[in-house]
């Protein structure tokens, strides 16, 4: 549950998500659930020309199982706190 809680602290931040099919989507993290499904608002697809089906989409629900990476704003990640939480096993 640690990363679920962690993502919850990142709501309303701009994140970039890379899917397993190489699509990269930048947007405002609106919500996350226990499966790490992610909801993004005001999305922007990088390399949109390659993915025309994603034009004119304003917000998006991404199934957690297809996410490869989530790129986070460095300033919003408290690595010390995360390390601490990991070692406490919460």
């Amino acid at each position, binding site marked *: *549950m*640690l990363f*679920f*809680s*962690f993502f*919850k*602290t990142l*709501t309303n931040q701009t994140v970039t998500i890379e*899917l*397993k*099919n190489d699509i990269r989507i930048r947007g405002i993290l609106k*919500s*996350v*659930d*226990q*499966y790490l*499904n992610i*909801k993004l608002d005001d*999305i922007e697809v990088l390399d*949109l*020309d390659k993915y*025309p*089906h*994603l*034009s*004119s*989409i*304003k*917000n*998006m*629900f*991404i*199934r957690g*199982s*297809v996410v*490869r990476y989530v790129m986070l704003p460095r300033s919003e990640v408290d690595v010390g*706190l*995360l390390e*601490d*939480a990991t070692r*406490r096993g*919460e």
Partner: protein
Amino acid sequence: MERLSLNESPGNTQQQRQQTQQNALGPQAPMTQSGPPQLPPQMFTTAAQLLDLTDKKLVLVLRDGRKLIGVLRSWDQFANLVLQDTIERIYAGKLYADVPRGIFLVRGENVLLLGEVDLDREDEVPTSVTKAPFEEVFELKKKEDSKRKSSDKKRYTELQALGFEPEHSGEILF
């Protein structure tokens, strides 16, 4: 040092301290709320995420690469979905075509993503693609698919020889 935890709201430690102070003043002292407002936990469920999308026109991308456009009518906690008035949009090269399909019940595991269509911008088709007759697009797509299949196979065989397991072994993702 304060015992901070991701599971607690940032105001919690402060709150607890206030509470102890108040308890020292008297057991019946009311608890005050402090710290930034936190979203209630029920906001962070699959159901809450999909609830906003209900009855909206959506683009659904499936694990096999299909793009379906329809209205979301029902769903459950696994992201199993029911779409109404669905069309399938087939893309190939710089062309696309629409095929009317009707009602879809999609098993959640096949869902890649769901996007809400901005109805104000829905008709702005990107200049990189043009609409074409279904048969033409379908033929082109068949060619593209077989080409990609053989190149994927070649890559995976080479990777496997080097000891790499393909990232999504066996599964094809688009």
